């Protein structure tokens, strides 16, 4: 019996589901070259390079040619600042949650302590509770705390504490940590404790053991945990929506705001860049990982 045999039904369904998954992606990409300014109908690709020429809302020629909307996007200050915020938030929260989560994973798989069952349980909160519940919970928490602090210290006007980059980053750390812990812990549980014992036996103290043995062996797990935290942060809308303030708008929030008002091919250009960047980064990581594993 051929283990790879699949029925016509399965093959057809697979084809349809993949088409379903990719149709929107293609639409997004194609429309980012749309000459129509309103981006309602696809009026064809901007084909000519040259001085900007717009007739009836149709871009006939542009200095950037088909990449007109990408150029417009690059000029857009709001997008640039939102992209900067998104990356800043993602980097800081990824690094923090990876470190914090790895430590917790170590505790949960290598130590016994009183708070262990409680800690394990608390990790499942972000998985089993809808994001919006956490989002408004955190929003309420911060606004109550800030109200209290502002009146306590007597802060006025712009000096008042409020929502911003800090609250977004802290919230992102909170919902990423459990995922890092679960991924790293799974890896730790598959890793025989005798490696760490061997290191200590050979004279390495706890810290040296961690940095020279545990961490290098755990690295693939830590990296995939970190990658997960990074994607979660990049993709997050709901919690950012409730915790962001002036100056901490991220790309998803910015796009959402745009979509409720106007639709422009700039959003498509942004999507296309987004897809390309993520695609390249992931391919690069996979390539690195493959090289690593074939190396050893």
């Amino acid at each position, binding site marked *: 019996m051929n283990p790879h045999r699949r029925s016509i039904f399965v093959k057809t369904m697979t084809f349809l589901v993949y088409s379903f998954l990719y149709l929107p992606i293609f639409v997004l990409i194609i429309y980012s070259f749309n000459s129509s300014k309103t981006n309602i109908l696809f009026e064809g690709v901007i084909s000519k390079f040259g001085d900007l020429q717009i007739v009836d809302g149709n871009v006939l020629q542009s200095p950037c040619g088909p990449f007109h909307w990408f150029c417009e996007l690059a000029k857009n200050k709001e997008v640039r600042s939102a992209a900067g915020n998104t990356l800043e938030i993602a980097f800081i929260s990824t690094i923090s949650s990876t470190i914090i989560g790895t430590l917790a994973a170590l505790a949960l798989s290598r130590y016994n302590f009183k708070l262990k069952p409680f800690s394990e349980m608390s990790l499942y909160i972000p998985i089993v509770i809808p994001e919006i519940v956490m989002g408004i919970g955190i929003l309420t928490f911060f606004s109550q705390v800030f109200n209290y602090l502002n009146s306590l210290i007597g802060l006025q006007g712009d000096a008042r504490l409020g929502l911003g980059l800090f609250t977004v980053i802290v919230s992102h750390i909170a919902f990423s940590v459990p995922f890092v812990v679960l991924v790293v812990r799974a890896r730790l549980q598959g890793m*025989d404790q*005798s*490696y760490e*014992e*061997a*290191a*200590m*036996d*050979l*004279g*390495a*103290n*706890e810290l*040296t053991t961690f940095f*020279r*043995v545990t961490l*290098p*062996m755990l690295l693939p797990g830590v990296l995939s945990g970190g990658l997960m935290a990074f994607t979660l942060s990049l993709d997050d809308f709901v919690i950012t929506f409730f915790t962001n303030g002036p100056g901490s708008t991220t790309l998803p929030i910015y796009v959402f705001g745009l979509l409720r008002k106007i639709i422009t091919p700039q959003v498509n250009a942004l999507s296309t860049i987004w897809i390309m960047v993520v695609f390249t980064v992931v391919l690069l990581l996979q390539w690195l990982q493959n090289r690593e594993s074939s190396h*050893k």
Partner: protein
Amino acid sequence: MSDFAVELRDVVKSFQTPEGGWINAVDHVDMKINNGEFFSLLGSSGCGKTTSLRMMAGFEWPTEGEVFIAGQPQGKKPPFQRPVNTVFQSYALFQHMTVHQNVAFGLEMEKVPSKQITERVGKALEMVKLSGMDKRYPKQLSGGQQQRIALARALVKLPSVLLLDEPLGALDLKLRKEMQLELKSLQREVGITFVFVTHDQEEALTMSDRIAVMSHGKVLQVGPPIEIYERPNCKFVADFIGDTNFFEGVVTGIDDKKVTAHIPLLNSTLVGMNTGGVRLNDKVVISVRPEKIRLTETCVLTYNCFEVNVKSSAYIGSDTRLEVESERQRIKIWEQNHISTLDPRAYHQGEVKAFATILPENALVLPAE
């Protein structure tokens, strides 16, 4: 220097069971291991031998009692502050380091100058016959080679005691036998005390200067291999080491040297050695090794001789293993095939009548638990 390389003084180690109760994995153990000795901890899984070893290494701390290494109490010292090194059952070679880096790791931790490290690592690899492998990764080596690297990595530190936790368990039989002899000669060469944990009695008998037989967290008997095999001090040890026949009976006569017991299944009496610990009318078992029973055509003794029916026999090359019956007692007898012959009668095949003789010095009278 202390008299003992390792000493366990009234050591207890309890663990919590998943049900919430407590169990003594090691139960009031006293043990003294001499300097330069090849000492084995032998027992089936869960007998406490590995836990004892781990307490010497510092991976576990005793619940009660104290572990001494080279005369020093170890208390709750972590592994990296103890003058012992371990060879793990899984080898635990660091997969992300080369062979050289693995062996050098322990010396780096001691802050040995790098020139000396290279030199000592080279010597250690030479000692385990793996010179030239230093640039490879553990995954690129065979199981036997990995085993040697693990050994080199521990020995390069020149520990006062080397702890080995079933290091040969993962090797195939032939390689295992080779490594047994090699380990033993290596130990003689370096003169380091070896504490060797195994569940394989043959391995323990082959390699050890002394063996401690453990069961249910307790040490039952400590002694050289010959003593453990020839003079087991209890029914468990007699049963666990090698093969034996047990004759159950009641003591009917006793003096300093000999004990006479009535064996109901034999419908007769059997005279055996007095190993101490039994009194008149005690229930006893008499242990007789199968290879120590003589099968003859006529009796050679006036006592301890029984007429038997040969029930079955199995030719296994060096020996013929027979199952015989006398009255209702089944007896295993192993006859060495020292005559080269193809005559089937030499192996007592089929329903042949014969006499089994047991010399009293080969019959150990032990308390029936």
